[in-house]
């Protein structure tokens, strides 16, 4: 599937901003975190036509107007039940055998 690079006014998109660059980060931040920016993503409805990676304006679900770089058009939820983890299968087998006997 080819992802669209253009979005129209009203489309649901994800916008990106850098809140703090590495040198602006708070003093108490650990060293590895200090090396990277504090980044932010907010989703909303596009208020104008735009191309992917453009600076855009969106209206969020609470009605806030947020500007930022449009990094995703029609963002979906990527999470799943993950890959098979064979070790998990062993737990039930063992417990049933202890409780109910047999070689289940």
């Amino acid at each position, binding site marked *: 599937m080819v992802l669209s690079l253009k979005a129209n006014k009203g489309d649901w998109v994800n916008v990106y901003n850098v809140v703090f660059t590495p040198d602006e980060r708070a003093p108490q931040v*650990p060293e590895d975190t200090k090396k990277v920016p*504090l*980044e932010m993503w907010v989703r909303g409805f596009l208020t104008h036509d735009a191309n992917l990676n453009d600076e855009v304006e969106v209206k969020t679900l*609470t009605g806030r107007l947020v500007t930022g770089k449009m990094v995703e058009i029609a963002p979906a939820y990527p*999470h799943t039940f*993950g890959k098979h*983890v064979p070790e998990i299968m062993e737990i039930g087998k063992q417990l049933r055998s202890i409780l109910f006997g047999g070689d289940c």
Partner: protein
Amino acid sequence: MSRDMSYEAVMGRRNEIMKKAVGIDYSTFESGSIAFDYERMMKETGYTLEEMQKIQGDTGVGNTPIFELKNLTTLARKVAPEGKGARIFIKDEAGNPSGSFKARRAANAVYHAKKLGYKGVIAATSGNYGAAVASQAAIHGLKCIIVQECYDSKGVGQPEIVEKARKCEAFGAEVVQLTVGPELFYTFLQLLEETEYFNASLYTPFGIAGVETLGYELAIQMRERVGKDPDVVVCTNAGGGNLTGTARGLQKAGAENTEVVGASVSLTGLHMASDGQFNKKSFTTGHTGFGIPFATWPDRSDVPRSAARPLRYMDRYLTVTQGEVFYMTEALAQIEGLERGPAGNTSLAVAFTIAQQLDEDKIIVVQETEYTGAGKHIQPQLSFARDNGIEIKFGNPRDEVPGENIIFPEHPSMIEAQELDLNKVRKSLVKNALKNFNTTAPSADDIAFLAEDIKAEEAFVKEAIKDLTK
């Protein structure tokens, strides 16, 4: 004129922003030093138990069932010494509208926001509380923003948190997602200032008091069921509100002799604000990374005085490993037919250990479960761990090193929650109090307050101060 939005400037406006956003003037409960009037704060700014039951009942929250885990009890008896193996019960809080006990906290906070005329609510949380606030905001017709710490610098999100974002949006909330770092609080303050919404903090008196109904209900249900109060109630402990509210509810029900036990997943060695370690952990809450800092200094929260003060009520504090909790989560599904989210089963793993220490006629209640689903389930969380280089294997849970491996016990007899030295934890709170108020000579009122705050005698506090100021 535009306001200064630098980190320092916004943090500097913290108290002013918070006062406006929670509607509580905390200064009226302050003594000027360590002590403050906790009970008066809870009374004047909270709700009575009856009011809370009504508020929660009106939105479908509470009155969740309690199940007896008979097969798990049998299992505990098989591995326990002769005559030991208390009966284990679980309160199925996943039955709340948002899928966890957090609905109780959110119900009160959002009701209160609406009563005070706020147009919306904001909460800073990556956990079940976000979904709970979003659900309640949907019921009350308020706007809602949830601020999450979700991704590492490579843009990889914890599956459990990504799922929570989905659930919040499912309830119509706006979700603001950030990479790792304590400056989340900056963004949170900025949003409060911009929107003038209510801060549905986890740590206000209304939020904490919302959990009192859980402890109260639990005591009444067990009296009806087994004719007596539970001997032990185990609460998963992170920010401290779950344990605090539950214990207060038990007290309100008159369950004076019930032992209240805190349970956390041990994440020793992992830094909570580290970008590199963010996706090396498989628990995003209920762990020692929150449990210990919040127990030993409750006022690190997002309000000046936290209503969640777990050491006031805690009788024991035990930790379990990630592998032990995942194992128990799978056991709950495999031998009890209850598929629930892993984080809520932290207290179940601890209960399994305590059951083996108590006689067979004793009663243990695990006071929560949470919903499960894509991302928020043993399978995706372990699969994610493996993808992040975490070794998953069977072995001795005592060999688990957070961030390196997850060890399933080779046999259920190897599940053994570890007792923390509660006196050491109590001393840490005294130490933090002296440090935060920059004093070595607290007043008599401060000492009396500290004794209550850690459930100890004044002599214990004095001794701790003597040791600390030597």
